[in-house]
């Protein structure tokens, strides 16, 4: 008996030591904290989403008399997939989504790959300029293109003034050009090709031309070299470009909202918006779930076919060189193509918006009709209801909100990226490391509108220690930060990986504690990597619409959402001016960031 209690107490002591040891390692504590946080913000929403689709919602009381909200039901599944309403509610938007998403993804990939090849492998003139010009659309919100399209091609099918096309030619453009699937595909493609370009050019740049030359020496033709050597090496990158583009395009809200909703051409994100906007949350969540499942399916297919982890590392330090293909005279043709592309994607849309913002009466583009009212005019001047952007408290407040939101999201990105990167890299190979990486990746599979829809449901009442956040600015920051997590964690991990493990170990051995290790060594070294991630998330959040359109309230409205509401109010001039203000803010902040962080140069290469 005494023996037993002795061993028991010793076991207890040991256990206490273990706990003390566990707690003494900061990375484990952080991992625990992050696990709880990510579980709450990423895993719970997924369950929440599924649960809401199988329970009775308050909206359903008219259809399900006598049932209490919260009871289990398959009602939503029946209505969405197998009722008289299903065609309008689900199948048609679903088909539209597939058509626009696949169409846009194919064009994006073709365009992105072609441009990547031009920039990386040919002697196109002014390569640096071309490289910058090609990624310019990324700076603009994705729906700017759509707004410009409407400005140009708007016809009398919908109310309000007609567009530039009708003004110039005196003919109304046909419906299929003005609205619907084709314009949506074109507008999405001309924005989202940038992702394909960035991923494929990055991969193509690491393929050593010597590999192809070895093929040439072995007697392979140019085509054969491309098919058997180059293509397989960049295939994984193409695969991830497809997935990334597809998920972004199918979750995109702004463009189909501008170009589809006026003629009731719905895709899943706009259908979700409409359902949730009319308080029919059960159906809305079910549609969101469909989007999530499609994203998962797409990732899964990509992994089965190509394998995400099968990235080829062919970089071999010395002797790495890139063979440039001489385009001969055609290089000027190619250059012209890029310039035209930039005109279509950047100059023309912005130009149209400038023109639009300056017209006194919408639809009249005559010089005599120009006014600065929608920029600086006060209420009651040219337009009795709407003041110019710089006199309009609603717009100025929204602009301030946009900046605040982007700023806080960038800060959250920096902190979370640092913590996740630190823990994942420090505990590399362990289960917690992999689980954390996976959890941080999860928001990727939620299309933006769907994610917004889930967060409304989750935070309309208190969750654990978190109070009900619906309608607060904090919720916008939270969702933007969480949605950014996949990129955040990637930059964080990359930033941490470039810090040699021995740098921190060396400090440990010398008796330097965790806090000063992080302050003096880890944080300064990770900073430069994290800053670029923060800049990306800042710009991304500034122009974000799909994610937050369901969550904003008048007091938390950001510039993008205000522009969207003006779209429904039909004040094209103000839309033009406000959009240009947003673009100017994004570009200005980008330049400012780069200037500021160029000066804080670290003492290492």
């Amino acid at each position, binding site marked *: 008996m005494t023996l037993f209690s002795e061993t028991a107490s*010793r076991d207890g*002591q*040991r256990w206490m*030591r*273990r706990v003390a*040891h566990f707690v*003494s390692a900061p990375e484990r504590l952080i991992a625990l904290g992050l696990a709880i946080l990510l579980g709450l913000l990423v895993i719970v929403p997924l369950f929440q989403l599924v649960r809401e689709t199988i329970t009775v919602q308050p909206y359903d009381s008219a259809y399900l008399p006598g049932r209490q909200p919260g009871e289990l039901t398959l009602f939503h599944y029946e209505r969405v997939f197998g009722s008289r309403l299903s065609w309008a509610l689900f199948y048609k938007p679903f088909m539209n989504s597939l058509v626009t998403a696949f169409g846009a993804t194919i064009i994006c990939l073709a365009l992105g790959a072609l441009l990547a090849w031009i920039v990386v492998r040919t002697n196109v003139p002014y390569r640096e300029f071309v490289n910058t010009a090609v990624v310019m659309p990324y700076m603009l919100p994705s729906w700017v293109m759509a707004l410009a399209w409407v400005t140009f091609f708007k016809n009398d099918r919908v109310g309000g003034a007609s567009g530039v096309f009708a003004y110039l030619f005196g003919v109304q453009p046909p419906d299929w050009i003005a609205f619907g699937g084709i314009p949506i595909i074109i507008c999405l493609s001309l924005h989202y090709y940038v992702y394909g370009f960035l991923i494929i050019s990055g991969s193509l740049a690491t393929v050593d031309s010597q590999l192809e030359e070895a093929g040439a020496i072995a007697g392979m033709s140019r085509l054969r070299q491309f098919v058997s050597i180059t293509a397989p090496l960049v295939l994984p990158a193409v695969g991830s470009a497809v997935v990334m583009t597809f998920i972004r395009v199918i979750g995109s809200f702004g463009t189909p909202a501008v170009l589809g909703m006026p003629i009731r051409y719905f895709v899943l994100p706009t259908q979700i918006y409409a359902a949730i906007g009319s308080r029919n949350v059960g159906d809305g969540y079910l549609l969101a779930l469909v989007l999530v499942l499609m994203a998962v399916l797409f990732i899964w297919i990509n992994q089965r076919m190509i394998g995400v982890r099968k990235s080829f590392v062919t970089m071999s330090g010395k002797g790495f060189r890139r063979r440039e293909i001489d385009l001969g005279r055609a290089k000027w043709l190619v250059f012209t193509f890029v310039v035209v592309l930039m005109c279509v994607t950047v100059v023309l849309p912005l130009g149209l918006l400038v023109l639009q913002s300056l017209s006194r009466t919408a639809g009249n583009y005559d010089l005599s009709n120009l006014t600065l009212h929608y920029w600086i005019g006060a209420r009651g001047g040219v337009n009795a209801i709407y003041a110019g952007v710089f006199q309009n408290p609603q717009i100025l407040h929204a602009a301030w909100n946009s900046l605040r939101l982007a700023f806080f999201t960038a800060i959250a990105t920096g902190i979370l990226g640092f913590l996740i990167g630190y823990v994942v890299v420090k505990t590399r190979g362990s289960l917690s490391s992999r689980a954390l990486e996976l959890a941080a990746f999860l928001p990727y599979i939620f299309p933006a509108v769907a994610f917004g829809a889930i967060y409304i449901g989750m935070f309309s009442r208190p969750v654990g220690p978190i109070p009900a956040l619906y309608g607060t600015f904090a919720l916008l920051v939270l969702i933007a930060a969480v949605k950014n997590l996949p990129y955040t964690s990637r930059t964080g991990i990359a930033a941490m990986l470039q810090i*040699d493990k*021995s*740098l921190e*170990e*060396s*400090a*440990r*051995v*010398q*008796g*330097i*504690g965790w806090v*000063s290790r992080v302050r*003096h*060594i880890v944080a*300064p*070294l990770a900073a430069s990597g994290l800053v670029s991630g923060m800049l990306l998330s800042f710009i991304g959040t500034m122009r974000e619409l799909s994610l937050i359109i369901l969550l904003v309230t008048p007091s938390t409205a950001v510039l993008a959402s205000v522009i969207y509401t003006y779209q429904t109010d039909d004040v094209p001039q103000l839309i033009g001016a406000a959009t240009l203000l947003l673009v100017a803010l994004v570009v200005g902040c980008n330049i400012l960031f780069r200037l500021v962080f160029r000066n804080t140069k*670290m*003492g*290492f*290469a």
Partner: protein
Amino acid sequence: MNEVSLKGITKYYGAHLAIPPLDLEIPKGKFVTLLGPSGCGKTTTLRVIAGLEQPSGGELTLAGKTVYSGRDGSFVPPEKRGLGFIFQSYALWPNMKVDKNITLALHQAKRPKDEIDARLAEALKKVQLEQYGSRFPSEQSGGQQQRVAVARLIAARNSILLMDEPLSNLDAVLRTEMRTELKRLSRDLGATTVYVTHDQVEALTMSDIIVVMKDGVIQQIGSPYEIYHEPANLFVAEFIGDPRINVFDGMLEQRNGRSVLKLHGVEVMLEQAIAREAGPVTCAIRPEHFNLHETALDNRLAAEVDVVQPTGSQTILSLSANGTPITALIPRFVESWPSAKVWLEFVARNMMVFDPKTGKIITSTAATRARSNAA
């Protein structure tokens, strides 16, 4: 007194046992080298001593203080062990200038400012980098970075120094130079040094004691002389020595109380009898221990000269006897061998005999016996 003491230390990585129970006692003030091929557990052992890896079991004592015990799970983290450590990559913090690199730990320990300044000046002077204090590590050559790492060690004044392949990133000339300096540093500081390397030349030139490891198991502990002349087994014999030791399959015969080795038709009568039954054995002889003759004689092995490689003070001869490659080393400069054939005489006192199954040594050479007698 033993400064570093490992008793039954084990280390698992998941289910993989990297270090089976390991016992090692390191006396105070000695320069001890852990030597072995990559993956033999030498770096893991060093990191266990430093506290950067937590062992799975056993007991570790530093300067009489238990810093890890598998029995009660106590573990002193590396920041409380007060050791000096030089990393293979030097681990200089690239965001700090040289002086900050050297003094950061002292600042964190809240040492008085004039003491820090004095120690910094002394350390920089010792490594001859007085003017380089305000440079970034990236602005220095590999050799200078190495010196900064050494200066950091000097300023910290630890009584136990751990070095993890500190010279492997340097070119050949610098390596020889830094070898001398590290040995001098260890001597001047009077510190107990544990040095990890896979380079046998570093081990032989710098150490008081060499610990040869393989697959986490210590093969032999001994002075450089013992390791070279009395290898405990065939692995040690083959790992130490450049060019490599020659290994032959031979037969042991017992004749009138004398032991005779037969290999390639040559008989070598050993000076002292081996208490072992007649049968197959593995014989080894170092390249420099052959006597070379240019004429045929009984009991000499005829070999064809294949390649002649002069290295300066010595010449390596690659020979072939009945298809078996043999390496011989002669202490003079030879560009080409005058005849196509040489005859090798095996000197009995330089022959090593190993058990062919276990690889353990059966006899040791006469030279070491003489040495141990003298001692």
